[in-house]
């Protein structure tokens, strides 16, 4: 299983690249010029995303560094105890929708502290792997096309993050204990 998985992750990108290029070549597309033309789009998109990303990163960093995150954790502690949710994982669950790199740092920290094969280590890895940075995805995707009103997208994203956290807890508990 492990070899199969690592083989796929190793080959997926090279095969995609080769296939796209060869298919384009067979259809008599000037592959080099077409690539360069498309890559230009990456530059304009990045410039368009930049202000949105700066805005969000400033808010999230302030929230973490000011101690507001700690305070929030203290307030919801009774709920956690009631749900039997491990307190150590709350910062991860809360930060996951806000910052990908921030939550990755927390997950790595948990794995280093409790060991990769502990319950908390496995749960942290599963949780990090099965949810996504909703606010970041929303900022980048909607920022790129100039959407100002995200309608109900944020609500759906946050609910599905919560679902991911709950599923992680249930499944890791069921499989590994």
């Amino acid at each position: 299983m492990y070899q199969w998985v690592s083989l796929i992750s190793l080959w997926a990108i090279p095969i995609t690249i080769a296939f796209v290029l060869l298919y384009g070549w067979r259809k008599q597309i000037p592959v080099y010029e077409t690539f360069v033309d498309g890559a230009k789009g990456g530059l304009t998109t990045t410039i368009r995303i930049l202000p949105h990303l700066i805005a969000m990163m400033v808010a999230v960093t302030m929230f973490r560094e000011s101690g507001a995150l700690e305070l929030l954790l203290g307030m919801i502690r009774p709920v956690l105890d009631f749900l039997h949710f491990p307190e150590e994982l709350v910062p991860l669950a809360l930060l996951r929708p806000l910052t990908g790199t921030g939550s990755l740092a927390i997950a790595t920290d948990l794995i280093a502290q409790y060991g990769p094969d502990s319950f908390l280590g496995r749960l942290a890895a599963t949780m990090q792997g099965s949810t996504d940075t909703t606010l970041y995805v929303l900022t980048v995707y909607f920022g790129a096309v100039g959407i100002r009103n995200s309608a109900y997208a944020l609500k759906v994203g946050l609910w599905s993050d919560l679902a991911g956290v709950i599923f992680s807890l249930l499944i890791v508990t069921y499989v590994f204990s």
Partner: protein
Amino acid sequence: MLNAIWLALIVISIAVAAINGRMEVINQAAFEGAKTGVTVCFGLLSILAFWMGLMRIAEKSGLLELLARALSPIIQLLFPDVPKGHPAIGYILSNMSANLLGLGNAATPMGLKAMEELQKLNADKQVASPAMCTLLAINTASITIIPTTMIAIRMQYGSVNPVEIVGTTLLSSFGATIVALFIDRWYRYRHTRRHR
């Protein structure tokens, strides 16, 4: 809603720092955060430019269209307002398959191209359309077959079996995606009823 969250995050942070008498932290965090925004963005630039270049070849050669036609029944179900054979479908599909393989970096440029195409179909350019919300829901809950980063970190810390979280991650993200699609449908239903 994004407006409210952003405002709340900043105002609460400043208030908490004021109560704790640690205002210097806010000054530092503001500039630190802005710097991180730039760093992340330029990290994206290389990957975005590369995949968008490659995707342009796939687009011009008709590869995307081929893929879109093969898998259009699924997309028709998830995105009822996108016309058959529209270029958005090809990008949505590439975005979904890249997410499936855990290639988050490759998924973003395709997702952005899909958004651009959906924006062309959008009546109000300032407000996200239901199709855009569905695409976002799929991306935030994304089904992951290979959680590459987490496997790497588990290896680094000497796990006996680093890949044993593949199964739990797959199940958990699959569950989250199903939930996300149902919640999306519920909000979409309420949204369209209100705007009719």
